[in-house]
């Protein structure tokens, strides 16, 4: 033991303390960066002297994995919930301005009732035609809203695919520098932080799993097991659809040529915004559209006009008050049960349903609603058919047809089970069970979204607690390091004094 050894020891102490203080200051500086982890200076003793051998970081693989999956679920549920909130607009939310199909059907029935009690009143006739127009417009705009939601989801998918490709590109570079850094032994902690942050961003778009390889290399797979990244990124492709109608099919998303969003594909992604948007575009919105189409079909059927001449065996029918864009064909077929009509599922019917121009006060005669024969003026109407119900047309006290129309709204129809809102119901009841279906979806999605948000927030908190920076810990560490630095510096100065005394004695 001599003075030189003491000097080397003190110098090593100063250098270790300053290296550690620099790590502390890095930690404090990164405190506001949510993705930065706590860095740790690893001190080793070599040749009896301490030295900072490497910088490592606090990490927790399990918590990161659970955060990735929580991110995917949360993004999926909130995509669904946001889209449903838009669809919910078609129902209206308060009693005063309810615009839902079921409320509009109720208003039409009420207007017909008032008209039936004063069949001579042209004001009541116009009010009834107005209520019918409101109903047709309501269905048209609901249908537009549904297709807009699909279009937005499609645009969202395109966005998501762009983001995924972007992230994978950045990921390639970061992953490469980590692999090289690990091999050469440089500080890779910041790159690791960046890579984890990229993984978190990616998990919001698409459900992923990761596998670690040699030299900290990471491979990414979709949650359906398809490779997304293995040393180089796979190309994710998607063709956006510019306009949506009820019969438009959106395109699938491909990863390296394999469809990951087509229904029935074994590689369908299960979570992430992509999965949520796909289910909105291809499942939820089309189902609601089918229900609107069925309601429209039910209305055309309820207001159809039957040949009154008593033709046998089955009298001809043609569309009356409501038509499929002017066509006189009634979208229903008889079933085995007498009097029960099966409503044909015609995609986009709700967008095309309109009130016959022949009852419009400016282009026709609203009183045809009372007398029947609405479409008899149509060039395509069967000229021999007799569709007028009033035995003495023009006699204004006739109300039987109006009362028949009101009761038709409560007649049971057979709806397509694929539309998902029940099978045998009246048009009015079907509209209300369609509202229930949507309400159920909205409330489920909203619950799922808030649940998955809570899970995501808990996972994020847990990860932050395990790997994040606590200012107070860093500060108290710094106090200790400060002391250690001061002590080593004092030692240096003491050794210096000793050397000075020694050298002056030698002189």
């Amino acid at each position: 033991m001599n003075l030189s050894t003491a000097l080397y020891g003190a110098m090593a102490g100063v250098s270790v303390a300053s290296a550690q203080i620099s790590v502390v200051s890095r930690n404090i500086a990164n405190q506001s960066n949510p993705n930065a982890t706590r860095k740790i200076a690893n001190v080793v003793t070599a040749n009896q002297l301490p030295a900072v051998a490497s910088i490592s970081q606090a990490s927790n693989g399990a918590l990161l994995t659970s955060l990735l999956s929580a991110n995917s679920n949360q993004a999926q549920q909130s995509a669904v919930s946001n889209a449903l909130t838009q669809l919910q607009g078609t129902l209206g939310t308060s009693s005063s301005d309810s615009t839902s199909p079921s409320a509009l059907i109720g208003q039409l029935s009420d207007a017909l009732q008032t008209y039936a009690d004063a069949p001579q009143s042209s004001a009541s006739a116009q009010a009834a035609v107005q209520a019918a127009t409101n109903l047709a417009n309501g269905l048209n705009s609901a249908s537009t809203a549904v297709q807009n939601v699909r279009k937005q989801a499609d645009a969202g998918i395109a966005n998501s695919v762009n983001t995924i490709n972007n992230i994978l590109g950045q990921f390639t570079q970061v992953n490469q520098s980590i692999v090289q850094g690990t091999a050469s032994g440089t500080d890779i902690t910041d790159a690791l932080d960046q890579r984890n942050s990229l993984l978190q961003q990616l998990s919001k778009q698409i459900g992923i799993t990761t596998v670690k390889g040699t030299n900290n290399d990471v491979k990414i797979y979709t949650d359906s097991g398809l490779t997304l990244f293995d040393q180089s990124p796979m190309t994710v492709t998607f063709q956006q659809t510019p306009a949506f109608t009820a019969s438009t099919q959106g395109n699938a998303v491909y990863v390296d040529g394999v469809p990951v969003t087509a229904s029935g594909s074994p590689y369908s992604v299960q979570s992430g915004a992509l999965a949520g948007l796909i289910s909105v575009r291809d499942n939820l919105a089309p189902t609601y559209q089918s229900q609107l189409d069925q309601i429209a079909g039910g209305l055309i059927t309820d207001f159809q006009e039957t040949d009154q001449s008593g033709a046998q065996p089955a009298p001809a029918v043609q569309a009356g008050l409501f038509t499929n864009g002017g066509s006189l064909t009634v979208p229903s077929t008889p079933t085995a049960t007498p009097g029960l009509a099966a409503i044909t599922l015609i995609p986009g019917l709700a967008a095309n349903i309109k009130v016959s121009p022949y009852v419009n006060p400016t282009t026709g005669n609203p009183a045809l609603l009372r007398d029947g024969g609405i479409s008899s003026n149509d060039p395509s109407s069967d000229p021999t058919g007799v569709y007028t119900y009033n035995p003495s047309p023009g006699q204004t006290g006739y109300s039987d047809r109006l009362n028949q129309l009101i009761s038709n709204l409560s007649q049971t129809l057979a709806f397509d089970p694929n539309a998902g809102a029940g099978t045998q119901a009246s048009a009015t009841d079907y509209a209300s069970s369609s509202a229930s279906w949507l309400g159920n979806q909205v409330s489920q999605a909203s619950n799922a979204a808030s649940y998955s948000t809570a899970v995501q927030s808990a996972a994020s908190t847990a990860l932050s607690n395990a790997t994040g920076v606590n200012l107070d810990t860093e500060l108290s560490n710094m106090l200790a390091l400060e002391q250690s630095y001061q002590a080593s510096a004092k030692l240096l100065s003491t050794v210096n004094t000793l050397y000075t005394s020694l050298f002056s004695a030698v002189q």
Partner: protein
Amino acid sequence: MLSAVSTSTLFAGPRNAVTTLQAKLSEAETEQSTGMLADPIKSLGSQIGLDETLRSQAASLANMQSANNIVDTTLTVSQNALSSVSSDAQTFLNSIVSAQNTGDVRTLQTQAKSLLDSFTSTLNTVSAGAYVFGGTNSSVAPMANYSGAPQTATAAAFTNLVNQQTPPQASSISSADMTSFLSSGAFANLFADPLQAGSTWTANWSQASSTGTSAVISQGQTVPTGVSANEKAFRQLASAYTSIAGLDLTSLNSSTQQTVLTSALEQVGYAMQGISDMQTTLGLSQSQLTKTNSALQTQASTVNNMVSQLDGIDPYQAATALTDLTTQLETAYSLTNQISKLGLVNYLPA
């Protein structure tokens, strides 16, 4: 075991709480001010369909009640018209009896003419834009004025009868001829049932439809709301008035004159009976309407009650929730303040 808390979690805690609480607070405010769920679709879920059905049911019930008021007005107007027709008929009845005794037919003729005018104008009563006695043909005045086609037709029939006599004079008409003229001859045809062959009632007198009007006053309940001017009682009454007003009574011999008076008396009697039957029918409709309206009222209040059970909220609960949320929000604010003061850095020497 909670080993450590990262500083970002520590600061984010109250901040996240504040955003959540503010969202809830805005919902609670809406609920308290409107007394209804802030977001019924989210809160009711699959019950929203039931809520909508009940709402439109409540609207329908209210609509039905106001539509029934129109029906009620029509019924009242019809009833008033019928009583006026009936009391005129009673006056006429008395006059005929007194004329039978005094033989003064001129006064009776003048009276009959004025009563006939009042009769046709009463049957042309309008309510809510519809002729109440027009049957389903409610946009056209049902009764023609006596001075037009009816008078001409009556005069022609009488002239024809006179011309068949030998010599062709009114005084030659025998009592028997007059009876057959009034009960089955050309005169009777003027007032015969429109469905009967030879009837000229609709050609001269009436444009009404024989189909009476009816209205649905609640689901599945239909009541008659008006009678047609073609009803037998009205034709009988018109015939009685016309036989006095339109035939040249003074030129008839006294026994034939008596025959006409007796026949008119008979017709008025039948007519009054018929009108009384109509009054009963419409009266039944009115009482049914009153009962239905009160049933609709009960139904409406039940439905409204169910609606408010579904999407209404307890005001006491809403107020409590609002207070709770306010307290929580204030706590979160004060926590944010306190946490920001906490930190080792504040206690280290400068």
